[in-house]
């Protein structure tokens, strides 16, 4: 796909890389360029391209909605509305980063609105992993990563609601988008460092202190 003339990502003015350079390009960057091409086609009215974007970014959008503490049904309504809103604004969105960031912003805003409408007095502050099912009971015993997931889940729940939300969303973002998305979520410019300091480093130290966490 990347070697077809005319199919390259031409969203911006960056010169087209030579095929020889493509070999050295990491998969995340290839995915990003692919998404850029989908965006171009979708903006030109290609419905199939829009469906491909839905397939690609649905897990991100879903997790953004669920990270706001919405139940599955309300989250599904919010997700559907976000995609319809995207279609209306497709012509304003010009890069893959902007696309992911736009979806995060719109979904998060709408999910919060719905959540605040649904919130009953007895419910505490929702947090992304507090509402997530317990993997030790939700997953079958034969699932290979079950114990690791349980360990991760337990430690994630010790983090602040803000960190839980951030990590849940960032885990679903293509890593080259990481910085951009951290900013979208209100982290300072060049936010990887601070983000890692506050959330990821905290989680890593919790995991390091947990004997059941066996990943290195």
């Amino acid at each position, binding site marked *: 796909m990347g070697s077809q003339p005319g199919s390259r*990502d*031409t969203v*911006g*003015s*960056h010169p087209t890389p030579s095929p020889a350079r493509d070999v050295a*390009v*990491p998969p995340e*960057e290839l995915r*990003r*360029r692919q998404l*850029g091409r989908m965006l171009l086609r979708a903006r030109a009215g290609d*419905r199939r391209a*829009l*469906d491909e974007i*839905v*397939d690609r970014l*649905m*897990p991100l959008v879903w997790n953004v909605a669920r990270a706001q503490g919405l139940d599955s049904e309300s989250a*599904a309504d919010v*997700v*559907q509305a976000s*995609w*319809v809103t995207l*279609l*209306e604004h497709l012509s*304003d969105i*010009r*890069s893959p*980063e*902007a696309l992911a*960031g736009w979806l995060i912003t719109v979904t998060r805003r709408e999910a919060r609105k719905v959540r605040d409408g649904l919130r009953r007095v007895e419910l505490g502050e929702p947090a992304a992993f507090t509402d*997530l099912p317990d*993997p030790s009971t*939700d*997953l079958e015993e034969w*699932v290979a*990563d079950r114990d690791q*997931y349980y360990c*991760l*889940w337990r430690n994630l729940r010790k983090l602040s609601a803000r960190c839980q939300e951030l*990590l*849940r969303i*960032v*885990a*679903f973002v293509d*890593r*080259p*988008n*990481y*910085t*951009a998305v951290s*900013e979208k979520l209100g982290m300072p*410019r*060049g936010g*990887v*460092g601070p983000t*890692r300091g506050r959330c*990821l480093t905290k989680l*890593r130290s919790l995991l390091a202190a947990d004997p059941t966490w066996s*990943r290195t």
Partner: protein
Amino acid sequence: MSGPRSPDAIGPEEGPDDVDTGGFDRDAALDGVDHEVLDAIRGLCQSVDPVPRELYARVRFALDLDGVERELAKICAGLEVSGAVRGPEHTRTITFECGQLTIAITITPTGTNRNRIDGWLEPAGSLLVELRSARLCTQIVSDDCGRFAFNDIGPGEMQLTALPTPGSAIKLDRTVVTQPIVL
């Protein structure tokens, strides 16, 4: 994050030195363990809280509706008729209405999860009628009395569209779509 860039791209400013990096060494601050932890979080969420499979179809369905100039015919009457002798089966009659057209349909279960849909148009006339569901898009022309039928329709969300049809007694100035219903 180098490469294509547009005015609305979000992210840090790129200096000339960044141009050839392909954007990925911007994440040098994330080491292998960071990536493993983030991958594990993704795996955890996907395992215990996956995207519902039907949501993909639902979103596509919603996107298909958008962007076409059309008039929406809303449900103005729905009637559930219990088929008492046939146990749990129900026949439903639903009427959709908009300024140009009324579409009435009767939905009759015909077997395991299958339905027959009989419909009629008011005013009566021959129009191209399309039935759209997540899995299917099929067209039929109503007869001069405005009657049409679709057989063997599976469960799920569906919607009817009546299209302006040359030579018809019914002159639609734009396409009429019904509110989606769930079979």
